[in-house]
């Protein structure tokens, strides 16, 4: 039998409907909170800062702010999407349905990534009200946007499978991802750091994401864009391998 397209569609629709029900918290809040960043950093403080590599500070932080939301939203959405059925017991239906691992992931991760991309675009549009910006490479901008959304939705899916209580669900985004994004060059160019910290920063994967994304906007980058792309793909590949392993072994899904 061929692929269960109706199955993917059912999961995708279900997840998008869940987003629709919680529009305020799932879409509006990320956009509003980003506006606050623009007002504080872009307009109030940024006005007193000079340009960074020829880009106004307000414009400079746009890619980083989008990444910030993209990562946290992708992870929280996808992890909750699979965690909740496990928690409530409704997962029995997905487990007993004629859907393959690929189809399950396509449905859950696809929906989470779609939502993140929508949020990213909304932030981009909102930013326009605060600062002027150009997008040098729109194709790559969307490329990085989608690639990052998919990768981190998949990462969120893994966290959702792994977590067996609400605390575990929160701990990785809170304790790992948030610090990494703040220290990943969202608000500064890593060239502004002392040399030692520049080296340390290179161990932070988020640096590559933000740098690549910023390059797509302004043609400036902390690390070579090819390296950024390679690192993103590498992380995507690592997540795919983990998901493949989860389904193969039934880890925390099938007893």
């Amino acid at each position, binding site marked *: 039998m061929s692929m269960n397209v109706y199955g993917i569609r059912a999961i995708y629709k279900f997840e998008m*409907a869940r987003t629709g029900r919680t529009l305020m918290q799932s879409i509006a809040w990320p956009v509003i909170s980003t506006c606050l960043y623009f007002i504080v950093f872009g307009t109030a403080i940024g006005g007193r800062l000079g340009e960074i590599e020829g880009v106004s500070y307000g414009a400079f932080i746009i890619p980083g702010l989008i990444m910030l939301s993209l990562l946290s939203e992708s992870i929280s959405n996808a992890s909750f999407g699979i965690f909740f059925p496990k928690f409530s017991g409704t997962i029995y239906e997905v487990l007993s349905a004629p859907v393959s691992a690929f189809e399950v992931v396509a449905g859950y991760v696809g929906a989470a990534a779609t939502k993140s991309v929508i949020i990213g675009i909304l932030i981009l549009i909102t930013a326009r009200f605060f600062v002027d910006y150009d997008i040098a490479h729109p194709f790559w901008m969307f490329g990085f946007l989608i690639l990052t959304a998919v990768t981190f939705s998949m990462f969120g899916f893994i966290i959702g499978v792994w977590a067996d209580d609400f605390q575990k669900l929160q701990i990785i985004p809170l304790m790992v991802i948030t610090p990494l994004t703040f220290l990943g060059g969202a608000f500064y160019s890593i060239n502004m750091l002392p040399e030692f910290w520049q080296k340390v920063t290179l161990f932070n994967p988020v640096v590559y994401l933000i740098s690549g994304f910023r390059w797509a906007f302004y043609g400036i980058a902390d690390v070579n864009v090819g390296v950024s792309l390679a690192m993103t793909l590498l992380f995507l590949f690592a997540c795919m391998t983990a998901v493949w392993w989860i389904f193969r072994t039934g880890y925390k899904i099938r007893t």
Partner: protein
Amino acid sequence: MQAIISVKGVGKTYAGGFTALKSVDLDIQRGEIFALLGPNGAGKTTLISIICGIVNPSIGRITADGHDIQRDFRAARSKIGLVPQELSTDSFESVWATVNFSRGLFGKAPNPEYIEKILRQLSLWDKKDSKIMALSGGMKRRVMIAKALSHEPSILFLDEPTAGVDVELRRDMWEMVRGLRKSGVTVILTTHYIEEAEEMADRIGVINHGELVLVEDKHTLMRKLGKKQLAIQLQNPVSTLPESLHAFTLEVADEGNQLIYTFDTQREHTGIAELLRALNQQGIEFKDLHSSESSLEEIFVNLVHQNQNERQLVG
């Protein structure tokens, strides 16, 4: 006739090391209603969960409609509908959305007319736009049945479908199950209400401590293991039984006003004629006779106890 579900040597040891099933062999015939009986923790849900793909078997092979449930999971699972024991539903979804979701998940193209039909059959049509959390427990159970039927399965598993369901709804469900069988659906149900198995099932399987103790046609089972009793209402009470009646399995009851004769229905000879003659010879007069048959419940309790005693002997 080829079995629609064939379970061969299936066992399950959970991660903690507990063996919930020990090498079960079972064939379910196409179109039958099969009742799985057993005390709490016997392994009924485990067996069903394995067949439906929710739990991985530790050992053994299963085919559903000729398809291996692991190698050919798509074909196998698309034939099967499951109503699990636990009421787990998506509280925030509407009835309509959740039933259509199930149909899609099982790979079927949308068919609103069909979904409408099953919602009407289950008296859920006027609730189709309600959120599930606003429904009563019995209604939720029906929503889960609607979900299980949404993809037109040819095999339906009902894991304690009538737990916590009122008498009227229980009758409705029995009616529905009979209707399904008429349309060719094979139904496997578990229940703690023996009355239910007695009423519905064509065949009965008894499972205890992860072992299938017995599988038998319902009528054969009741004939074979059922005991009949004859209650003899006496004219005058007796204190002791005369010697000549010791050959019969007689019990004195009701302060000597009643004799209870237990006999095996399987034996060709019930011995009733001889007993009555013997009573006559002893001059014991009776005013009333009345016979009763043991219910499936008594048979079941006996079986499980017997099984327990054997285990104790072995262990």
